[in-house]
């Protein structure tokens, strides 16, 4: 089924054109952060996979997947800032920027993660997991609402959800670290040999 419909997940963001559905996702903090944003990420990933190698960044600026994974980290970090969630609901320019940034993050992850060796991959995944966990704890500990668009109890539940995602991504990082290194992976993971002089 996955092979027959490679574009199907990529078309998921089109659902956001349906205003009641978009409102359903964005009117509460948990589905906004933990359903909509991951959905956009998955859609970007699927879109890049359907497009194939031409969706990858040129290797000349993305050695070891560094540029693509930097983008993924930056987008994740930016959308952990509480004001960004409010602004994306109140300013249509930021709303579109959010959709685009997360789609590109998914596409960048698809293109760059296979280029990253174990160390680089674990560094970025661990970094994102740590960031989500920190945000999750802050969301739970803050005595006041961090977003004017959401209630305090939603914020606490979302914080717990962020911790769940942090553990999930942390587990992926550990799995990647413990994965047996094939010769091909080893070549990618190790530093390039110095050229003969």
């Amino acid at each position, binding site marked *: 089924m996955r092979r027959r419909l490679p574009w199907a997940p990529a078309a998921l963001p089109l659902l956001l054109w349906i205003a009641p559905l978009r409102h359903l996702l964005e009117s509460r903090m948990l589905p906004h952060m933990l359903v909509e944003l991951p959905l956009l990420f998955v859609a970007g990933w699927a879109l890049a996979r359907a497009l194939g190698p031409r969706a990858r960044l040129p290797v000349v600026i993305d050695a070891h997947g560094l*540029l693509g994974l930097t983008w993924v980290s930056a987008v994740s970090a930016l959308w952990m800032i509480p004001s960004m969630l409010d602004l994306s609901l109140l300013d249509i320019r930021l709303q579109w920027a959010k959709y685009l940034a997360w789609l590109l993050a998914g596409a960048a992850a698809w293109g760059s993660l296979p280029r990253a060796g174990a160390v680089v991959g674990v560094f970025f995944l661990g970094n994102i997991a740590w960031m989500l966990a920190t945000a999750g704890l802050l969301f739970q500990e803050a005595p006041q609402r961090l977003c004017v668009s959401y209630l305090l109890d939603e914020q606490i539940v979302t914080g717990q959800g962020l911790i769940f995602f942090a553990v999930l991504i942390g587990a992926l990082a550990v799995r990647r670290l413990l994965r047996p290194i094939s010769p091909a992976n080893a070549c990618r993971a190790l530093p390039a040999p110095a*050229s003969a002089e």
Partner: protein
Amino acid sequence: MSQRPLALTLFAVTALSLALVALSAQLTNGFTRWTFEALRRDAAATGRLSAPAVPLRTANGVTGTPWPSDTHTVYLVDFIYTQCLTICQALGGEYTRLQRQLRARFGAHSPVRLVSVAFDRKHDTPTELQAYARRHHADDALWLIGTPASAQAADTLLQALGVVAVPDGLGGFVHNGAIHLIDSHGTVRGIYDLDQWPQALERALQLTGTPT
């Protein structure tokens, strides 16, 4: 892999990182404001927040926001809904105290006026507005209580000021319960928490040139 792609990659990563740091700094006022409310208050403190003029429906008929005007009157504006049993009642109580002080000092010709904008248009009927005014002993000469005359007027005013009312699931709303200091041009000159009303009054009097 040769050194050249790595050097180009590091250059691209550095450029992207710097751009994103600059963007983050811009969005958080130099990494000091992380919430929308904090940004909104910063915007008010630096005169970057303006309240548009919209028609208001009061218990006595339709009028407009008192701004803009040629007078040098300054307004202390709060946002309420009449069914609210918590913060809006507290705001009403503080406004009653403010009104008492203004009346004692200036009579009916105060350079500082009070405005309460009720945003729950469905329930904030003229009758409910009148009941709210009666409950808090509002004097028409000093305290204007009204609701935006149309849904569009409500959206225009609330969005411009960044006032967000979230349904609380119990038939009420959670909202920014702050006092907005607005000058005669409609520019917001400060946003104060409920318990900071003496500071809001002091600043309002300063803006009118009245000794505090």
